[in-house]
């Protein structure tokens, strides 16, 4: 049903939304279906640098009133947006499926996550808005949170609705005027988020949808002196660049910028001798090859203890071989396409590197149409090999053997990243040690390492995996806020009411 309806709407043009108006653009980009690139999902107008400046100016104009809007009203808009998404859930999931090649079940879970973000951050701002009072006789001390100003959200294509919505509504609900610059590959879904926010009642200039080339206009927004905050999710390379550029104080700039950056991972699952291999095998397969490994949380290394190495590898390879590879919309598909030709070629390059350094255990034929890469397993991989160190962001899994649990932990921690990690074990002491020594932002014990849920598994890492605190957690909104303390001497002529005294 939803598929038919969405198919009828393919190929439309989506223009940037600047100051409440859809503006025409000089350039356009096609967003295509990765399962079948001949199918154009939509044509997206790309903002010019001048239009970007206009958008910033509009945000600046809208800010005073948005800042003055009570938190409860801002929260109400988010809740309405969440409800609208819930009403359009199957349609939105279908857009996700078609535009970024994600299986429907996972696309649906992503829409749920977007809805959760709306409701959770609405609740959160109401909690934070109360602030703290440290009053005493003759003096009040009010600790209160204020918005920072103008936020630029740079969102990725791999969770085109969940992450884009999460970052955007966090910035909005905290009173910041927000520009959403989505990844080009998922700009149509971002336009849908825009539709929903407008319908929910976001005033003009407060939210602006600004698809643009990242390397030029995106970079311009990051450097803009009027921008206060950049919320980014994407690659380590771009994240580091944004962090550096945001640190440069531009002429006329009167503040330091805050950067929240969620970057990559080189996530490992340790499987020890006591593990339930039925579960471990299945969940490693899910974690590594779900959405073709294109999740920041995906498993790209599995570290297996020597006593079960052979058994585990045999089953892992066979279980992966049993996955169906095909277009995302086919319900039997276990592994769909990767996002685009560039990504495919980069992943294939890594596979070549892997072949030179270690032993390939699985590679399968893939459909000719679409950007497909076979689920690929390397075995006997050394912990220091390229494919065991660099983020590939594709369906490539490195199996590394460890002689004992100490070594397994050392290998697990031996990369630049610290995002997610997993342990399959029924050894109580291993479970306990991993909690202290496995250095990741999200550790999953005896379950898959993807699929974090808002307010249950607040998500995010450290080291080169990012800067800033966890999305969907109690500290997240604080990053979009500036706390101020207001102290008032309430004595007049030595007179003041003193609590508890007559």
């Amino acid at each position: 049903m939803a598929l038919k309806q969405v198919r009828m709407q393919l190929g439309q043009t989506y223009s940037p939304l600047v100051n409440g108006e859809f503006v025409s653009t000089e350039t356009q980009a096609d967003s295509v279906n990765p399962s079948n690139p001949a199918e154009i999902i939509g044509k997206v107008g790309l903002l010019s640098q001048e239009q970007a400046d206009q958008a910033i100016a509009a945000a600046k104009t809208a800010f005073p009133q948005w800042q003055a809007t009570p938190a409860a009203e801002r929260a109400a808009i988010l809740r309405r947006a969440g409800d609208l998404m819930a009403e359009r859930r199957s349609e939105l999931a279908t857009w996700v499926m078609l535009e970024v090649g994600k299986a429907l079940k996972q696309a649906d879970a992503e829409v749920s996550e977007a809805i959760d973000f709306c409701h959770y951050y609405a609740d959160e701002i109401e909690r934070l808005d109360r602030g703290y009072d440290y009053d005493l006789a003759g003096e009040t001390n009010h600790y209160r949170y204020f918005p920072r100003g103008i936020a630029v959200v740079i969102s990725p294509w791999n969770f085109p609705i969940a992450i884009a919505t999460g970052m955007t509504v966090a910035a909005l609900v905290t009173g910041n005027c927000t520009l959403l610059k989505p990844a080009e590959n998922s700009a149509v879904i971002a336009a849908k988020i825009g539709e929903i926010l407008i319908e929910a009642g976001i005033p003009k200039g407060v939210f602006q949808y600004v698809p643009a080339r990242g390397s030029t206009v995106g970079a311009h927004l990051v450097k803009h002196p009027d921008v206060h905050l950049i919320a980014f999710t994407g690659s380590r390379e771009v994240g580091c660049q944004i962090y550096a550029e945001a640190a440069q104080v531009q002429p006329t700039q009167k503040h330091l910028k805050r950067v929240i950056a969620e970057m990559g991972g080189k996530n490992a699952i340790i499987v020890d001798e006591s593990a339930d291999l039925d579960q471990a095998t299945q969940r490693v397969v899910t974690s590594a090859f779900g959405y073709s490994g294109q999740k920041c949380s995906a498993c790209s290394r599995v570290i297996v203890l020597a006593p079960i190495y052979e058994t585990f590898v045999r089953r892992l390879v066979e279980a992966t071989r049993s996955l169906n590879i095909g277009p995302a919309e086919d319900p039997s598909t276990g592994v769909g396409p990767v996002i685009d030709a560039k990504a495919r070629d980069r992943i294939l390059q890594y596979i070549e590197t892997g072949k030179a350094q270690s032993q390939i255990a699985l590679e399968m034929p893939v459909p000719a149409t679409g950007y497909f890469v076979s689920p690929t397993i390397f075995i006997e991989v050394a912990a220091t090999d390229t494919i065991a160190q660099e983020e590939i962001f594709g369906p490539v899994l490195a199996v590394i053997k460890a002689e004992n649990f100490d070594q397994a932990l050392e290998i697990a921690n031996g990369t630049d990243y610290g995002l997610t990690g997993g342990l399959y074990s029924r050894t109580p002491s291993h479970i306990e040690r991993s909690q202290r020594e496995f250095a990741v932002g999200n550790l999953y014990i005896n379950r898959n390492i993807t699929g974090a849920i808002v307010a249950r598994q607040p998500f995010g890492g450290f080291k080169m995996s990012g800067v800033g605190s966890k999305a969907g957690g109690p500290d997240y909104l604080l990053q979009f806020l500036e706390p101020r303390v207001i102290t008032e001497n309430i004595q007049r002529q030595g007179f003041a009411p003193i609590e508890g005294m007559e």
Partner: protein
Amino acid sequence: MVVQVSQPTYEQKTQAIARELISATREKRSLFAQMRDQMRWDDRLLAFAMDNPGLRVQLFRFIDCLPALHSKAEVARHLQEYLGDPSVELPEALKGLLNFANADSVPGQLAATTFSKAVETLAHKYIAGETIAQVIKTLDRQRQGKLTFTVDLLGEAVITEAEAQAYLNSYLELMQQLTEAAKKWSPVEAIDSAEGEPLTKVQVTVKLTAFYSQFDPLDAVGSQKKVSDRIRTLLRRAQELGAAVHFDMEQYVYKTLTLATLKGVLLEDEFRSRSDIGVTLQAYLRDSYSDLQDLVTWAKERSTPLSVRLVKGAYWDQETIKAVQHDWPQPVYSQKESTDANFERMTRLLLENHAHLYAAIGSHNVRSQAYAMAIAETLNIPKRAIELQVLYGMADKLAKAMSDRGYRVRVYCPYGELIPGMAYLIRRLLENTANSSFCGKSRGAPGRRTAHGS
């Protein structure tokens, strides 16, 4: 033909039968309980577990991981880690056994061996054999006690297509060997015929999802096609060999597709007239009664009876947790009493439609079985149309008492290796050490998880 009889008639008779069954199964129990000190380790472990809930949890968690461990030293180390947990109050006998400083030491090895042996012995109480040859011996013994059987292969989760194919092949092999062995069996009137009609001596139970490694309710069409192909192969071979096939029911997520798939295949011309096939319904599911109503309508249309094994359901915890975690409505009844009541409603519906569906009542609950018997006896239901089922090793005395009363009793006999059998074993141990049920303290009486037909 639907026969209506007033509820009070069933109720009086149910209670009378239940009293008889209880007195028939109660002998010699107290003597057993007094012999704790002389019991073997496997029995002692169960006794400890019943006395101490903290120990029970840790002990079963340890047993769950035991078959995965590769050396005695690892077994000893895990023993200490699990049972040395502060939540566990250890009985003196166990303290002594666990009092070693080094897992590689002789006392450590001794503890490992003692436990491994005890768990193996326990497993053999509930698992009818590790090989087909062993299981055939067990079945032979059962038949001498006038009990018939269904054999279920305990397997690892099927996660590869090679495993799905192997699962089918194992059943083809199993049916071949069982029917071969059956040729040498002397007939047992009570279980091999009904109203003069000869019954199939061999029955196997299979799990539908194991026929396709990527079985997924979201891919209903694709999954149905894949498993249907393998079901046809199985049913054809079963007919050639003269074996009956029963389909188990698994987790709720698979239920709708399982029923749809079976209904589809069983309406095909080739299989439409087979009456030696069965499906399973789980009374703990809130929609199971309407599923049974649908099945009655469907069976009338098919016009050849099908067996329905009625069980309470073996995945209560799993279903409950899953629904909570996803914020979904609970598919299962929250209270055991509601499940029991639904089981009786379904029993009645099933038996009152005995012309269209054969009933297989799977329960260790005396009251549940007595209720079915009361209806069967009141309505004079033909022997072909009802049988009573228990799990191997779980209710031997009840099985005998029901058989003595003239019913065909079928024992669900799982077989296979210990590691894949562990999930099954843990469920049996949980049931067997649970403390609340109709006939509370007696061993062999199931508790909240009153389960059958895993």
